[in-house]
């Protein structure tokens, strides 16, 4: 049975109907049409769906939509647009950290939490910060450089 909930995504409150078993990822992608958060596995294994929940990075595929009512969800749609990119977005471009890009949005959200809590992380902290996110193209090296670059700016 669907229930109506209020979902605060990127400072906009949406009233949507969800099934009790619907994940936040599903609500974002299929109900709200916010496609930046990607499905890579649906089981908390890849991190492509990572969003911020009250500033903390979570897997939106492992978070029930019903659980997040009255909390703030931030997705890549809530970061910068091309006209005014968030420093993390610009750093990913400048470091050539984006190949296929499917993991990029999730990793940027993990990096957002990391940089919010630790503005000058060393390499080890960055590696730990993104260790819940898989990338199959880059070997992570340029992603780590991008996060370093963003922290320096």
């Amino acid at each position, binding site marked *: 049975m669907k229930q109506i909930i209020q979902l605060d995504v990127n400072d906009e409150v949406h009233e949507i109907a969800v099934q009790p078993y619907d994940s936040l990822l599903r609500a974002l992608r299929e109900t709200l049409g916010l496609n930046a958060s990607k499905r890579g596995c649906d089981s908390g294994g*890849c991190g492509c769906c990572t969003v911020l929940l009250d500033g903390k990075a979570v897997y939106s595929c492992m978070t029930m939509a019903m659980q997040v009512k009255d909390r703030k969800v931030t997705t890549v749609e809530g970061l910068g647009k091309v006209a005014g990119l968030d420093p993390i977005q610009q750093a990913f471009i400048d470091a*050539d950290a984006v190949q296929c890009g499917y993991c990029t949005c999730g990793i*940027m959200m993990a990096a957002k939490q990391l940089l919010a809590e630790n503005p000058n992380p060393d390499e080890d902290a960055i590696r730990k910060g993104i260790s819940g996110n898989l990338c199959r193209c880059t070997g992570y090296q340029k992603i780590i450089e991008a996060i370093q670059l963003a922290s320096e700016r």
Partner: protein
Amino acid sequence: MTQLNVVGKSVVRPDAYDKVTGGKHYPVNYSLPGMLHGKLLRSPYPHAKIVAIDTSEAEKLPGVKAVITHADVPQNVFTPVYFVPAHAKSMVQDFVVMSDRVRWAGQPVAAVAATSADVAEAALQLIDVEYEELQPVFDPEEAMKEGAPQLHDNAPNNIAKAPSFSFGDLEAGFAEADHIFEGVYQTQRVHTCYMEPRVCVVDSETDGRITVHSSMQHGFGLREKMAVALGIPESKVNVVKPTYIGGGFGGKLDVGHIEPVAALLSLETGRPVRIEHTRGEDFIATTRNPIKVYLKTGVKNDGAYTARYIKSILDAGAHATHGAEVIMVHGLYGTFFPWKCPNQTWEGFSVYTNNIIGGGYRGYGAPQGCFAVESQNDEICEKLGLDPIEFRSGNTHKEGDPHPVLQGHTLNSYRLDDCLKKGAERIGFDRRAPANSSEGAKKRGIGFACHPLWVSGCLGFPDIYEHSGATVKLNRDGTADVVSSCIDLGSGQITMLTQVVAEELGLASEAVRVVYADTDTAPFDAPTHASRATYSAGLATKAAAVETRNRLFKAASAVMEANPGDLYLEDGKVLVKGAPDSGVPITEITARAESAFVQMTEEGPRLTTIEEKGTIIGSASQAPPSNPSPVAAQFVEVEVDTDTGEVKVLHVVHAADAGRVFHPKAAEGQVEGGFQQGMGYALMEHLQFDQDTGACLSSDFLDYKIPTSMEMPPKIESIFVESNEPTGPYGAKSMSELCLIIPAAAIANAVYNAIGVRVTELPITPERVLRALGKL
């Protein structure tokens, strides 16, 4: 080398902006109004006959719009591999989209289209399938024995294909040898792990035409295979090129079940149908074929090869598909021709089993070969006390040698010796200690491997498509649009195409856009695979851009009253040679070319000329002139914990001759990502199957571990030994597969150097290390 303005620079990737702001153009995001959702029912048995299927209960479920089984699917038999014709003689035709004979656990046996994915999933539970179980066989060597269960009627002893090559006198070669080395090297089944799942949306028209959107590596291949699978003309299938896809690595190089099934469901319902794989379905879609290599090599005391016998047994799984070609490439480019040995015989066997199907995966048969040959080379050097770098150098080709496979072609650019030398210097190979000489439980080791022959495309391979095309159009605002069917998998094909066009038209790379393409409107291109895009699609796009430039000069010559041959481009202007102040902006030429014949101005009517009129456009479609070999050597330092068996990679140096490097940062990215996949192959990745049912036990990334940021080494260094490949675009050839072909061998050799014991079966897990050390 010529002075270049755009090629060779790490320009910003045009697609990066899109991808950091959400990446809206992935096929996974595609949706149409009224779209239905399809799901596949899969067999739990590895080998069975379907006696009956009852779909009546599923059809009654509200929301279900269509259910199909093998009875609704044309029983057309073909090869699903994109890069060859569906009935290529050199391949094996044994695949139908749905059959009443099950040959692997997970094979689709029915499909549902419903108003939501949940309803479709629920409907699958209501389909009643009656199976008659057959005896399965999972081990290829068992499958080759007399009396083993037979999978396909026309393949005695389950041998799908058994190619062989030979030259010289093997017996005499072994007789001449001072030493003979024998070994068996086994590799495992792994998945490419593209991050975007296989997904498609197929729509149909009332006249039977279908339009396909899919996350795949070859639009024209998909068009052809859809037409053959459905038994309709190719012109009835339009495949839209995805703007980009979320990774492929060879794993999206054949028509899966989803596209033809979605088409049939769409034709039946008259509505668009979307099917998306779960990660568990992706793991059983296509995989790297395991190969067992029996290797016997004769050498002189000084390390010169005298003879080599190689037998390779490839586990094709239930259908040959790529397994019929992987075995060939493994033989030709993975084991036989890379090395100079006067007497050689190679025998390959691609063998059917009730395992899941193999497939394309970056490196395509060569990682399995390199692991075997380079492991044994290391054993030879160790045993005979030879300098391992001189040994490689002495047994490989040299620049200017005839191409060992392609008759009439030459190894024009070939700097393996430089790669070996520079890689060794950078890692400090001279500090390498004898095997197992470090103190304590954690032992360090340095190892390396190289791969002396690879491809830049498929020129010369029987039946494999190898041509590319492009159209380049100049716009009135001074920008250029490129129509190309070359798909960007993430490795930077969009960027490469813009660099080529910008270079030829004297534009900034930001002024060039790669635009919409589909199989109805764009020229053919072979897939993005086999390290071919920069070399082959790059050359064709360069040719199209040259046509465009010629057309521009023709129009400009009318405007500027100069000979077209005296014109050149610089900074967005057309200039006359010898008159640097003569420049007319390209925008003015294109504006006049596209303007009305009589232009009204403040001063009254101004006449333009007929000669300058017409869209400034050029196109080309061509095969590349050759298939130059990139080469590379890779050095790694590892630490092996002899208490836990864990292997940690500490440092990597990859030295490559890729010809001219188009985009240094992207090239490094290829090396770094390639190493990650190679390290996963070497140390951790292994799809697991139930020993009795053949069912894949790896359903997601919790069961199938790939390297995260924590496992990756702190530093992967790339060295590009830039040679000039005279047949390539601006001197370029290929680079993106060797970086994954070599790591398993390099890491295995470093592990040996650390602990003095060799592991000859991948992956080199802690358990295998401890076993090798006699601790288990």
